[in-house]
């Protein structure tokens, strides 16, 4: 292997791998790092990165891991979520913070612990998830994450257990001395018939010029139900690459709501396999890049079993010189007869220099499939704007009102009213006037 010329890759390889003392894990880390070193960062010729150029990132050098993470000051107000006081796991720059977390009085059937702790106690149940080798050309960050992530979340819900209180996961980016890279890994498993509500947040505190990567695997056994709310509100300077891979057993149901608000460069991969008959996935999301933000969302849904259903409603609003990217790829695999697949992505450009690239893709290899997909990019409706103004609502307020209304379809069906209101408020202050 020759000396890599790319500063990003070179600085990454200069750091030692976190020692685990577990043979299979060390091996997986080494191999994933080697794959990362070989392929480096993908360029825009790789289809999955077509609209997200990494040239500027490639020129930056990052320090791997924050040695001071355990003692960094964190704004507690940034972590508060009204009405939610259940179990909570908090990570600062990728490192578990027991002092900010709440793991007391976990309800029966819920296992929740930091990955570092789970590995120290009994690594074997994690072997399958953490042994994975990432082989796709676009997988650079997943490889990096697999090599470097020493902490994260292990969450299990026992078969039949219905967890009433939402579980919160918070990833906080805090300013460090240099440019910092942190990596976190999440493994979630819901047993047969288990139910869970999960609220996952990325928040920033201070000027955090950093790179965070998060790889999450979520497995739902038959008849399990998961409500997953994802709020990405990272620091304005932060680069975040996160990936959620969902696997749904028979009749399992996932309802996901995502708000992509923060960060300078953000990439989110949401991958789902509807592997069991009758599995159902509903995703709702909104991305709001402003200024020079770049937010890229890649949805990949695979219908693999009989009578599976997926419905995805995403909205994008871009202002300033911001860029939004949305790719919604749905595959109905051979034999997945009776699938129902729906995807809608509507986008709003609030400035002539903003750009949103959207690409719905539908591949159907099965019979008796119902599918609908559509994507639009447009501007605010001038007639509606005039209507509001003619009633006395000032122009800026009218624009915000219409923009908020455009996004509303995404949060409307969130059952938790208090949370919905909070997210509505969060969105409202982030929407450009």
């Amino acid at each position, binding site marked *: 292997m020759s000396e890599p010329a790319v500063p990003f890759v070179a600085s990454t390889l200069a750091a030692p791998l976190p020692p685990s003392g577990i043979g299979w894990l060390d091996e997986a880390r080494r191999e994933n790092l080697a794959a990362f070193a070989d392929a480096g960062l993908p360029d825009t010729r790789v289809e999955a990165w077509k609209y997200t150029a990494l040239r500027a990132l490639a020129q930056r050098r990052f320090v791997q891991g924050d040695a001071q993470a355990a003692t960094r000051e964190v704004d507690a107000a940034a972590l508060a979520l009204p009405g939610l006081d259940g179990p909570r796991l908090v990570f600062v720059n990728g490192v578990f913070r027991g002092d900010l977390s709440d793991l007391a009085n976990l309800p029966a059937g819920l296992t929740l612990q930091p990955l570092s702790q789970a590995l120290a106690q009994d690594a074997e149940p994690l072997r399958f998830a953490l042994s994975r080798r990432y082989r796709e050309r676009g997988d650079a960050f997943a490889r990096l994450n697999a090599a470097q992530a020493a902490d994260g979340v292990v969450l299990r819900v026992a078969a039949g257990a219905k967890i009433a209180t939402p579980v919160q996961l918070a990833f906080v980016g805090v300013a460090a001395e240099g440019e910092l890279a942190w990596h976190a890994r999440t493994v979630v498993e819901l047993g047969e018939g288990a139910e869970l509500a999960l609220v996952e947040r990325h928040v920033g505190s201070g000027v955090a010029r950093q790179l965070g990567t998060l790889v999450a695997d979520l497995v739902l056994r038959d008849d399990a139900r998961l409500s997953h709310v994802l709020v990405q509100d990272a620091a304005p300077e932060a680069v975040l690459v996160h990936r959620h891979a969902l696997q749904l057993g028979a009749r399992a149901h996932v309802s996901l709501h995502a708000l992509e608000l923060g960060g300078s460069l953000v990439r989110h991969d949401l991958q789902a396999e509807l592997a069991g008959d009758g599995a159902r996935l509903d995703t709702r999301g909104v991305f709001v890049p402003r200024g020079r933000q770049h937010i890229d969302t890649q949805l990949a849904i695979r219908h693999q079993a009989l009578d599976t259903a997926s419905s995805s409603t995403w909205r994008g609003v871009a202002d300033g010189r911001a860029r939004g990217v949305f790719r919604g790829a749905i595959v109905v695999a051979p034999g997945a007869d009776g699938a129902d697949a729906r995807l809608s992505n509507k986008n709003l450009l609030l400035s002539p220099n903003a750009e949103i690239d959207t690409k719905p893709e539908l591949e159907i290899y099965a019979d008796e499939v119902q599918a609908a997909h559509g994507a639009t990019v447009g501007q605010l*409706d*001038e*007639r*509606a704007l*005039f*209507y*509001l*103004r*003619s*009633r*006395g*609502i*000032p*122009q800026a*307020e*009218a624009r915000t*009102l*219409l923009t*908020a*209304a*455009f*996004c*509303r*379809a995404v949060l409307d069906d969130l059952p938790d009213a208090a949370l919905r209101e909070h997210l509505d408020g969060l969105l409202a202050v982030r929407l450009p006037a």
Partner: protein
Amino acid sequence: MLKIENLHARVEGKDILKGLSLTVKPGEVHAIMGPNGAGKSTLGNVLSGREGYEVTAGSVSWNGIDLLALEPEARAAAGVFLAFQYPVEIPGVNNTYFLRAALNAQRKARGEAELDSMQFLKLVREKLKIMQISDELLHRAVNEGFSGGEKKRNEIFQMAVLEPRLAILDETDSGLDIDALKQVAGGVNALRSPERSFLVVTHYQRLLDYIVPDHVHVLAGGRIVESGDKTLAHKLEEHGYAWLAEHGEPAGAQA
């Protein structure tokens, strides 16, 4: 008082209004009638400040202020209301929320205290009663999925809540059956007062059987070509707009 003098306006490079003059005193109801293409809707749009309507000459003074210099929202705060011929559907914006935002924006602009939700609800209930409409419209998104009649009733209801001092009804009768027309007219009549003026723009005389005007004007070729009392409307109904061409002023419909 509304004073329009020698108003000329252009849309997409085409001259539509060509010297329109009109004075409306407080409490008066003026009907503007005219054939298609005469400039009836242009008048309402120019007065409410819609973009794309270029005023090339003339003036509009509203209680002594230059109305044309104001942004649409400032005109609304100054008491000007346009009931749209085609009310716009706004998905995702709740009707009640919209109306409260509008009322409070106007009050704020006028330096009045904003209404809290209890005060607003009380006001809305009163107005619903006067308008004799059900509160079902309130819970829906603005005009979304409304029938033609519901949209027009919603316009009048908004007018009742916002209490403008000049209401311009732009072909409010178009697309209404007789029952809906009576209901809308009843709402307008309930809002007539010595302080409130109305400009009722219509193609047909039918609406004026229910909203009886003080003055009727015929707009043709971008100008008022005939003015009179309510009997003028009946003459037009009887003889058609072609009658104007023979009767003194040329209609100028060739514009």
